């Protein structure tokens, strides 16, 4: 806790990242106090610009943008976190095993890994939607993206695990009869956790970005409000042409805040993990 406060004071990137994300998270939490359920429409007058009564204005579907947005950002964040947690499990499994086993297992796993890095995922996700159509749900998309989005971080984890393999404590573990699973989970996992945390931020950014893109095109479950789905409905009602700019502006603003916040957090965490870059920082 003390180091957290110290970091908050000393590192401006970390501080701004935390502030941005705290604002977004607080906003998402407001959804629990919303006076309307998320999918009710025509509960207020449509197309009212932002005012004292409706802070963010209202949509053409008669929803109050402020409360709708709280639900949307909450769903978007939860989506990102679910994908990140699931894909982290895969990345940890592949990375730790490849790094520890070495030899042909390592080469095989990394070949598969590099394949997943290279394959263009967007057409595959579109194909996935195309096959599922109305059966597409929020959970399925999260599962699919977790299965596709682990590779880049598995490589990072493996590079750390590789260096742990020849450390003395690993050998001590082997000679004292620990199983491979025990060594990986109890001995190696704690070493890779910092890097896992920083990649989590990047992964959330990645999955939210794709989710927004797919939803804006209408290629997800368009009845669950997320940031992308909100922009989708705004586009469907040609909000920009009709001059209802607030319907687009506030979701975009909020999601951009999320992206920059997560990114700053990831960058400053990397700096914290890798002391070499911290050295470069103090030189300036």
């Amino acid at each position, binding site marked *: 806790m003390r180091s957290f406060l110290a970091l908050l004071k000393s590192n401006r990137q970390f501080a701004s990242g935390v502030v941005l994300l705290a604002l977004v998270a607080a906003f998402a939490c407001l959804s629990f106090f919303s006076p309307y359920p998320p999918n009710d429409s025509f509960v207020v007058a449509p197309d009212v610009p932002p005012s004292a009564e409706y802070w963010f204005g209202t949509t053409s579907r008669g929803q109050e943008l402020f409360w709708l947005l709280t639900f949307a950002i909450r769903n978007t964040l939860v989506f990102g976190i679910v994908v990140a947690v699931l894909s982290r499990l895969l990345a940890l499994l592949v990375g730790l095993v490849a790094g520890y086993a070495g030899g042909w297992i390592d080469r095989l796993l990394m070949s*598969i890994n590099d394949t997943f890095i290279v394959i*263009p995922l967007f*057409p595959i996700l579109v194909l996935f939607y*195309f096959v599922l159509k109305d059966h597409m749900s929020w959970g399925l998309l999260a599962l699919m993206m977790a299965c596709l989005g682990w590779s880049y971080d598995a490589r990072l984890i493996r590079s750390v695990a590789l260096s742990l393999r020849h450390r003395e404590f690993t050998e001590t573990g082997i000679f004292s009869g620990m199983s491979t699973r025990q060594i990986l989970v109890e001995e190696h996992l704690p070493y890779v956790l910092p890097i896992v945390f920083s990649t989590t931020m990047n992964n959330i*950014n990645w999955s939210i970005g794709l989710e927004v893109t797919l939803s804006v*095109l209408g290629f997800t479950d368009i009845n669950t409000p997320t940031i992308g789905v909100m922009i989708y409905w705004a586009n469907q009602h040609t909000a920009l042409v009709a001059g209802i700019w607030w319907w*687009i502006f506030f979701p975009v603003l909020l999601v951009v805040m999320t992206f920059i916040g997560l990114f700053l957090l990831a960058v400053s965490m990397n700096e914290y993990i890798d002391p070499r870059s911290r050295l*470069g920082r103090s030189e300036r």
Partner: protein
Amino acid sequence: MSGYGLYLLTRLGQFALVVFIGINIAFVVTHATPIDPVEQSIAASTQFGSINPEAIEMMRQSLKELYGLQGGLWDQYVTFWRRIAVGDFGPSLSAFPTPVSTLIARALPWTVALLVVSTLLTWVLGNLLGGLAGYYRRNRALRFAGILAMAFHPIPYYIVAFLLLIVFGYLWPVLPISGGYTMNMEQDWSWEFILSLLRHGILPVASLALVGLGGWFMGMRSLVSNVVTEDYVAYAELAGVERSRILRSYVMRNALVPQVTGLAISLGSIFNGAIITEQVFGYPGVGTLLISAVHAGDYSLVLGITTVSILAVSFAVLLIDLAYPLLDPRVKAR
């Protein structure tokens, strides 16, 4: 075997693996779901009015043949590969009877051109500025450029493209926001046509560059600031080698090697970005084709585009890999 031969062989093996796994994912996605594309197409086309059952049955058979869904799972798998091998994805349903391959071949040059121009521009500019920023750390303008690049970097392609669309389409309409060239213009290589191509390309390229620049900039900056602390750089400085020469041939050259690898790694996501951007600006490439194929319910076209994307991206990565030894001669010595 010589080092280069071995390198060549492993890269070709990796290329084959990417294609193999990629195509398998496409197969699994289309075949593992309980939803039958044939029934979906039939449901869509029989939505209005009734058609006699025999006609529906005939339709079902020909659709099955068209989609390669005849026989058992193994037969379908073999058919899937055979079609890819000969480049035959059947006729497109939305633009019947034009073959899917013709539609893709028509759109692909646009995407390739957009990708090559924007990637080269972004990569060169990002590395150049990043290298300078890593070497001249106190320069104010470069530090400001760094902050700007970082601010745009985490925002996804779609949002950046969308923001540019709003700015240059509604707030300050000076650039064309849709299409690849002025509509109804004759497509000869006249000066006017080229100018129109360029003007229509500005916004898509700009949105790809805005997102991409930050990554190369930050990567190169940290690489260069690590290389600068090496002894040989200090020695060169003491020996009185010109600073510009140190930067060019001592520092940048070495730092560029991992950046080339980085380009190969991120090509897939750059491709994703390009097809998303195309859709925003209605650019007549593969991305726009893909989205309209989905809306039109054109199964063979969607599948064809996915397959071609996988093939094209892995081939481009192979090309970068093959050029890599030119920059890093150590590969040959291994």
